[in-house]
């Protein structure tokens, strides 16, 4: 399982190509995006947020991003399968991911002049049979992932209390939040670069950097 540069891998950027050269003009942004992935998925100390849970969360985050991010979702699903997760857990995570697919961002602003911009959508609540299959801890995480991905402006201290009640420590919540938020960045860089790669400039097929 080698991930030299996951963003290049998922966006289809090959070494020595014009877009590879463009990316190399932001060397830290590139290497530290990969270091972020490494910090989350090959941590020095996973603490009480284990690797199977981390791949499960990633599988859900990326699946929630729908068809344009199907490549990322397939990648993380494969990592979950290879992580040693029980096949029944992989099935439960896949079901949870499918249950939450919608379009965002939506949600409410603090009551006031922005209330006219409030928009409503799914508040994912994992039903009882699936909760049992995921376990309470992961079920609570999936609901929180849905909040962060689709309606981050609905966030609340109560949402964090629900995670704590389900067994997430404060340290775990910080890492979980970083993981979800990082992945929303990563899928967007992949989508953006992949689109750029597929849209060559008519007069600039050599890809030279002005």
């Amino acid at each position, binding site marked *: 399982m080698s991930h030299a540069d996951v963003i290049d891998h998922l966006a289809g950027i090959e070494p020595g190509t*014009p*877009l590879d050269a*463009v*990316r190399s*003009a*932001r*060397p*830290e*942004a590139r290497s*530290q*995006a990969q*270091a*972020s992935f*490494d910090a*989350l998925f090959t941590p*020095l100390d996973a603490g009480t947020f284990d690797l199977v849970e981390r791949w499960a969360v990633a599988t859900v985050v990326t699946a929630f*991003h*729908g068809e*344009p*991010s199907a490549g990322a979702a397939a990648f993380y699903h494969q990592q979950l399968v290879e992580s040693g997760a029980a096949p029944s857990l992989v099935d439960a995570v896949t079901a949870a991911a499918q249950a939450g697919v919608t*379009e*965002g*961002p939506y949600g409410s602003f603090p*009551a*006031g*002049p*922005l209330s006219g911009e409030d928009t409503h959508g799914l508040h994912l609540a994992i039903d009882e049979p699936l909760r049992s299959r995921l376990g309470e801890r992961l079920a609570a995480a999936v609901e929180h992932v849905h909040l962060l991905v*689709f309606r*981050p*402006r609905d*966030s609340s*201290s109560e*949402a*964090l209390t629900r995670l704590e009640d389900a067994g997430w420590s*404060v*340290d775990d919540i*910080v*890492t979980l*939040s*970083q*993981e*979800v*938020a*990082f992945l*929303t*960045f*990563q*899928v*967007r*860089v992949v*989508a*953006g670069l992949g*689109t*750029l790669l597929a*849209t060559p*400039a008519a007069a*600039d097929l050599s*890809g030279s*950097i*002005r």
Partner: protein
Amino acid sequence: MTDTTTATDELPSGRPVAFTQAELDWTPWLEPLAESELTERHWTGLVDRARGKNPYFRLLARDPEILAARTKTDKDIFYNTKTGLPRAERELAAAATSRFNGCIYCASVHSRFATHFSGRGDDVQRLLDEGVSVDLGARWSAIVAASVALAATPVRFDATHVTALRDVGLDDLEIVDVINGAAFFNWANRLMLSLGEPV
């Protein structure tokens, strides 16, 4: 990008209810590490020693390795301006993303930076007041539209956005700067929105 600031907004209730370029403060919902608890590993994660004063970064320091990588990613995307997109337009991408996702705190910081680096405070204010569909002229509107398309879930960014950015004069490196800046604020917005609130 989000160093703590002194609240000068005179909102008596504490929590701001509108987008603003004024300086806001931010308070965490979870307990940050105390400064006295910080070890070398935490200081490495904080990158800049001054960030040890900030409760947001001391909360994130509970996972030092991802914090360090995130901070270094952030700095190269926004501060590496020898080539590529002007800083003002990277900040515009950050502000537009924050406006669309609904992060009042992030929008306050990066709208202020967009104004500082562009001198177009009135246009920046119209983005905050009227939202991301506001007409800010061809170049800024193309950057805002691309940022918003990237922030949508599922991502809506497509060839039309690339072409629109090229039509207003952006080359591939500058387009990558838009992509990076907008994408990064999907990360930042979700942390600031979900781990605490502006005051």
